[in-house]
Structure formats: structure tokens, C-alpha cells
């Protein structure tokens, strides 16, 4: 039987990185995610798997270390919290442009600016619509438990390499700091350059053999026609991801007349809301997008005929609700409830807001 431990979400990320065969972690401390690097330093994976763990001098530096490692086809990752991710956005755009895989972890804190160390979900736009410049997307995974913090490290690396795209775990201070049972999966060993090439193609810059042209990794292409072709190829990749990689979870949706949509820590609270609503005889369900890009738009659309209304519940001023409204396109009323700046709602508070908005 797999070992079951009581761990914080942040600690689970670190343990998973080692066990999923990461080659390198580069990061800079910031609350509420500092336990990621602390745990890695305690575990000393450089003595076991050979994984590199390095504290960079800033977030700008860590993202560029990721760029370098990813060019060599290595499984590289970083973690930070909101202001740190803002500093990384230039590098994330470059990696998206150069089609480089990497795993980013954002344990969101309340913002804007330095904000607060309490949990929030105010970085949805930044993660999903692109915090950096240019027409790019990254895959965004939203864990709602400590076990998912662990599991999504493996899933994140898999998707990042499958599509050669930066992939982000979008978490927050609540999931990062909370402790739950986590089941450690079997360890996967680090892949060799040869194995990476066989599995994902010969794109990495690991030395040019005589029988093929050298690989060039760059996000620069000055001719408009060439740059347009690159953009079209990227967009085609994003459409493929939208077709293949949507992940979500439904709770009590079969007979639901009303739907809550929430991700991450909010979705856990909304699960509680659904439980109370059902006790009162209200046919309320919950849709939890697990991938925020690609967004489960078709899943919402399929449910529309049975629904009288939808409420998006977020720890921000209303960001994901825009994607819900795009999916719904006016077919049913879409409301929003949220709190900001590190304050969290309780299940009862969400139910009260829901009842008020829909006059129930």
C-alpha cells in the first residue's frame, strides 16, 4: 500500500517534484509558498535523484534559469506567489513563444501589489489570459486538495512536454497551507536526453549529431510572414489543447436547476454550499473547472437546457465569471459572488448570496 502522509499543499508539490522525476527547481522565497523550496532543501534530492534545487537571486532570474533548462529538454519548474509571478511574466511569454515546456506554480495571495499573505484568486486573468505580452496561452491546472497539488505536478509535466508549453498549477494560500492526507505515488526516475528525444521528439538543444540539422530555440522572428506562421501554429496548438485536455468535476449536477461554478479552494467551499442547499431541497449543483485553460466551455453549454441560473463563486472581484458568460452567451442568467483581499466566504455565506441573487 502506498504511504499516506499528512502534508501541506506546498510540501506535497515539493515531494511530487522529486518523485515525478523533475530535473531542476529554481525559485525565490515568498509567502505563502516558501515551504515548496524549504521541503526540497530538506529532502536534498541532489543526493538521490540528482535533481538540482537552486535559490535564484530573484524571480526574473529563476524564470530565465527555467528557460535555459527547458532548452536542454529538462523537466524544470519554479514556484512563487502573485508578485513573484508578475516578475516572471516576461520569461513566461518568451517560453510560450519558443515553445518550451516547464511547470510553474502560483500559490496566490491577496493583491494587488504586495497585498496580503492570505489566500485569493485574483490572478485568474493573469494565468488564463496571459500575464505577459503577445498572443499566447499556457495550460492552467487548478487543484482543490493537497492530493491534487501532488498529482498535478505529474500531470503538469506530462502536458507541458506533450504540447511543449508552459503549464501552471494555479493554487492559493488556503490549499498551499492546509494539511490533508496525501498518498505518494510510485517514483518515476529522471529521463535521459535520449529518452526525452524518443518520447517527445528531437527538439532540445543537447548537441547536434552529424545526421540532422541543429535545433534552434528562439522566440524571435523578424519577418512578419514568418512570425505570422509561428503565431498560426501556436493558435492551432491551443485549439488542439482545447479539444483534448479539458478537465472538470461535477457535483450533484444530474438534476440540478441551478449551478455554482468555482475552482480551487472556492470549489471546496461551494461543495459545502451544495450539501446545505440539498438539505433544504434546493436543486443546486457544482461545476469545478480543473483546467482553467482550456476552459470547460462545452461542459457548461451542454448543461444549459436544464439550468435556470448560474453563479460563479470566486475569491476575487469577478474574473472567471467572464468565461462563464462567454460560454452561456445570454442563455440563462449568470450571477457572481466573491470576496477579495484574503477574506474567505463560508458555505453558508455563498448560499445566502445565491438565494438573494435568484430570489429563492
Amino acid at each position, binding site marked *: 500500500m502506498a504511504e499516506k502522509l499528512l502534508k501541506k499543499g506546498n510540501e506535497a508539490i515539493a515531494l511530487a517534484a522529486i518523485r515525478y522525476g523533475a530535473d531542476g527547481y529554481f525559485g525565490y522565497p515568498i509567502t505563502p509558498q516558501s515551504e515548496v523550496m524549504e521541503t526540497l532543501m530538506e529532502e536534498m534530492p541532489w543526493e538521490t535523484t540528482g535533481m538540482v534545487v537552486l535559490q535564484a537571486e530573484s524571480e526574473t532570474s529563476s524564470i530565465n534559469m527555467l528557460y535555459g533548462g527547458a532548452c536542454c529538454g529538462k523537466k524544470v519548474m519554479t514556484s512563487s506567489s502573485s508578485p513573484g509571478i508578475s516578475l516572471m511574466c516576461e520569461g513566461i511569454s518568451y517560453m510560450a513563444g519558443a515553445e518550451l515546456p516547464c511547470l510553474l506554480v502560483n500559490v496566490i495571495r491577496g493583491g494587488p501589489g504586495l497585498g496580503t499573505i492570505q489566500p485569493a484568486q485574483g490572478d485568474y486573468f493573469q494565468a488564463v489570459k496571459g500575464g505577459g505580452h503577445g498572443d499566447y496561452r499556457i495550460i492552467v491546472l487548478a487543484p482543490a486538495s493537497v492530493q491534487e497539488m501532488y498529482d498535478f505536478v505529474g500531470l503538469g509535466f506530462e502536458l507541458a512536454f506533450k504540447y511543449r508549453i508552459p503549464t501552471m498549477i494555479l493554487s492559493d494560500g488556503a490549499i498551499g*497551507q492546509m494539511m*490533508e492526507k496525501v498518498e505518494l505515488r510510485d517514483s518515476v526516475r529522471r529521463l535521459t536526453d535520449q529518452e526525452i528525444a524518443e518520447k517527445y521528439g528531437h527538439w532540445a538543444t543537447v548537441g547536434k549529431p552529424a545526421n540532422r540539422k541543429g535545433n534552434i530555440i528562439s522566440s524571435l522572428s523578424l519577418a512578419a510572414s514568418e512570425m505570422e506562421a509561428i503565431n498560426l501554429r501556436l493558435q492551432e496548438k491551443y485549439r488542439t489543447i482545447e479539444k483534448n485536455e479539458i478537465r472538470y468535476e461535477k457535483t450533484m449536477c444530474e438534476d440540478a436547476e441551478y449551478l455554482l461554478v468555482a475552482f480551487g479552494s472556492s470549489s471546496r467551499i461551494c461543495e459545502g454550499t*451544495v450539501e446545505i442547499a440539498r438539505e433544504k431541497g434546493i436543486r443546486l449543483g457544482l461545476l469545478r473547472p480543473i483546467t482553467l485553460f482550456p476552459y470547460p466551455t462545452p461542459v457548461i453549454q451542454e448543461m444549459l437546457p436544464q439550468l435556470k441560473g448560474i453563479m460563479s463563486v470566486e475569491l476575487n472581484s469577478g474574473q472567471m465569471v467572464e468565461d462563464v458568460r462567454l460560454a452561456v452567451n445570454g442563455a440563462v442568467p449568470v450571477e457572481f459572488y466573491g470576496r477579495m483581499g484574503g477574506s*474567505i*466566504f463560508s458555505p453558508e455565506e455563498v448560499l445566502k448570496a445565491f438565494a438573494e441573487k435568484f430570489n429563492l
Partner: protein
Amino acid sequence: MKEELIIAGFGGQGVLSMGKILAYSGIMQNKEVTWMPSYGPEMRGGTANVTVIISDKRISSPILQWCDTAIVLNQQSMDKFEPIIRKGGLLLYDPNGISRHPTRKDIKIYSIAATDLANRMEMSRTFNMMVLGAYLKLKPILDKENVLQGLKKSLPERHHHLIPLNEKAIEVGKEHVKEVV
């Protein structure tokens, strides 16, 4: 079985570690557990508190409006958490430093003089284990062997020689818990 519990007191009283031992003991008993430090609507600052949920089934919200049990170790926590205990729920407190005693009639109220006991027995560092013992006497939701396993898992190995002392403190707590009428 689902137990939603809040433990609250001053920082340094071992509130968070008491919660951690309970949560680990829950895992040892094949339960689902969530341990959530002072985040959320209940947070006002000044005191340390932790929410622990132990359940047979998947746990939904880690943020609670109401709890089944509150373990209260200072006056601020009494003021904050006495009102949010569910009807018929449990309040366990250490009377040391409490000037305004609980007044609710619709909950069960017990006290454990853990601060006094721990000082008198020269076991002051196991104060929180006495409180834990009192709680487990009132809510025997976890088997003794699993609690000892949870204790072992929660403590770093260099502190494992203290386990017998902690075990003793749990027993002391069980013996001395009193109903408040």
C-alpha cells in the same frame, strides 16, 4: 462520522500541533482529514487557531461557519468560538485565565485544568496533550493505538523519547476532565 473541530488559544500553546496529531491519528484510522490554520472568516488576529475535520467521507469545505466542537484555551477564543458551536455540540476549555465563563445552555460544556495540572506535575510542556486527552475522553472517535501512531508520525524522530511522557499526559487529561454545570 464527521467531526468539525476548532482548537484555539495563544500562539505557543501547542494549538497547531495538537491539531496535527489529531489529523495524523485520523489518517492512521483510515479517515479523511483536513487541517487548516487560522485562515478564513473566523480569523481576527491575536490568537492562534486551527480547524480540524475528521470524516468517513470526502471533506468539502475546510472553512466553517459552525463547528461540532471548540477547544478553547484563552478568553479571546472563548468570546469568538463559544457562539459558533452547533446546538448540542461540545465546548472544552481550560479555566486558567478565563474571566468570563461560557453561558450557553444548549451545548455540552467541560473543563480541563491542564495549565494547573501540567505545572503541578512538572509536565508543563505536555499541557496540550492533557487537553487532547480530555477531548478524546469526551469524543472517543479515535482508537488509542492510532492516536499513539499519530503522535509518533507528528513528532520528529529526535523527540520520540518523549512519547511515553506525552502518552502519560493524555491519560492525565482523560482522568481530570470535568463537566461544567
